[in-house]
């Protein structure tokens, strides 16, 4: 009776389920399992339902490749997720719906791959036309989330060093773009030398896309931002508040706008939003007690990291240190602060207090077929 409902109806039921409920449902019988594997579950409910908040994936920065830890914000629970399906240890670059764009760490030349830790799939992207080391990477998701868990996307690679014509290395000025719709790399523009140098020497991998512009921020003091306006092929740079006082700083996208989170030693951690004319407006401060709890007795914000999804901002340190979260409530337009306990044990087993890199994703059990 229930075990042979038609796939389209079953998929509709499944679209209401959280990833953990779905994982249980698919394990009941072959028909329900096939449905998850073959019938795409439309995610039109995702943005509307609390049950589909993005999960926080914590990837250990040492001893990579064995496990990662994932926080489920709906039931306030941590899971241990095996990464033994990865052929090489990787570092996360960006999340794309249910997938994470990663780069293998054992390779000096840039190589990128996609992975879904819930379906245990891994796939290399083709190599870019120009071989380069240490470039900045930016990702733009093309379809809205409503189109499904694996939207089309573009990857932009700027800066880095490539082999010079007569030997030696030079800063690479060509801007390349990968388009998932045709699985190909294209040279789409140029990077002015000063930006190419900064993107190579001072930039972590993350970028933020907002309103047609890809932004990168330098990875250390004095912080500054670089922006590439994609349609107009224009580069620009601008500063951030307290640029030389901030001990940590992170760019993210909140409500579609460019947002900066940063902490300075004497004061609190603050959140700014980019306004007209590349000016920053202060919108929120991290509550003092929570900030202190996260710092755990230390005075410096230097070890703090930050990552954001459309509906939440997480400040974190190590796996066990707990997290300070600012997130959108069910009644929209209201954001509130929460403390989340760190991961100390899973299923009765103790978990080491590892340094981590966090990334958000919307878990999806439907296999991707790029």
């Amino acid at each position, binding site marked *: *009776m*229930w*075990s042979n*409902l*038609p796939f389209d*109806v079953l998929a*509709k*039921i*499944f679209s*209401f*389920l*959280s*990833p*953990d*409920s779905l*994982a*249980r*449902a*698919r*394990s*009941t*019988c*072959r028909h*329900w*399992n096939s449905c998850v594997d073959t019938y795409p579950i439309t995610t039109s409910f995702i943005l509307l339902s609390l049950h589909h908040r993005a999960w926080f994936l914590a990837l250990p920065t040492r001893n990579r490749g064995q496990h990662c830890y*994932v926080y489920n914000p709906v039931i306030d*629970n941590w*899971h*241990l*997720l*095996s990464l033994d399906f990865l052929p090489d240890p990787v570092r996360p670059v960006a999340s794309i719906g249910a997938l994470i764009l990663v780069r293998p760490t054992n390779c000096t030349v840039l190589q990128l791959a996609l992975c879904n830790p*819930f*379906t*245990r799939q891994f796939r290399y992207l083709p190599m870019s036309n120009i071989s380069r080391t240490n470039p900045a990477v930016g990702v733009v998701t093309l379809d809205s989330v409503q189109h499904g868990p694996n939207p089309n996307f573009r990857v932009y690679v700027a800066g880095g060093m490539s082999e010079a014509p007569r030997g030696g290395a030079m800063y690479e000025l060509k801007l390349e773009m990968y388009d998932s719709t045709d699985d190909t790399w294209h040279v789409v523009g140029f990077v002015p030398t000063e930006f190419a140098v900064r993107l190579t020497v001072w930039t972590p991998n993350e970028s933020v896309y907002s309103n047609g512009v890809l932004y990168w921020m330098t990875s250390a003091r004095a912080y500054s931002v670089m922006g590439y306006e994609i349609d107009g092929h224009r580069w620009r740079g601008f500063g951030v508040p307290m640029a030389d006082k901030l001990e940590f700083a992170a760019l993210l996208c909140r409500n579609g706008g460019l947002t900066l989170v940063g902490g300075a030693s004497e004061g609190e951690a603050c959140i700014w939003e980019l306004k007209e004319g590349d000016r920053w407006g202060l919108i929120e401060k991290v509550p003092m007690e929570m900030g202190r709890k996260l710092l755990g007795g230390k005075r410096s914000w230097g070890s703090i990291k930050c990552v954001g999804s459309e509906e939440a901002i997480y400040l974190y340190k190590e796996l066990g240190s707990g997290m300070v979260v600012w997130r959108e409530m069910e009644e929209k337009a209201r954001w509130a602060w929460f403390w989340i306990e760190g991961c100390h044990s899973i*299923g009765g087993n103790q978990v080491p207090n590892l340094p981590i890199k966090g990334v958000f994703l919307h878990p999806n*059990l439907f296999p991707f077929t790029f």
Partner: protein
Amino acid sequence: MLLSKNSALESKDNEIFEVEESIAIQSELIKTMTTMVNSKAYVNERNQMVPEARCRKQANYHVEQNNKIVDEELSDWESKFFEVDMDDLHELFMAANYLEIESLLNGVTKRVGDFIKACKNVEVIRQTFGINNDFAAQQEEEIRKLNSWNHI
């Protein structure tokens, strides 16, 4: 043409229901058939009287409620409406699917989803829905590995 704007629907077990036309066309299937057959539609499926009456009641209610914004009343009524046992739920489900009544189908699928969510593990889901484990040993092992993160 007709004296009233009512449609007469006949279910497979020969029960005839008179339903206001605006309600009858909540069902996409009936809507299509009435444009073909004018005022009578023949419901030709395993629809017993009970689901038919419920379908009609619910469609009726929705039309009335369109004028008022009484969300709480509606969701209260809805939760009572769907508080049926699994067999009845299945009948409602098949009826809503066959008659293509979107609002009813949404309500039922959500209710079924709630049932699944309430099940703490795979075995409970199987018992609740009367599902047999028909996996081969190797496939079961693959599934277990895929879900090893979900140990609760």
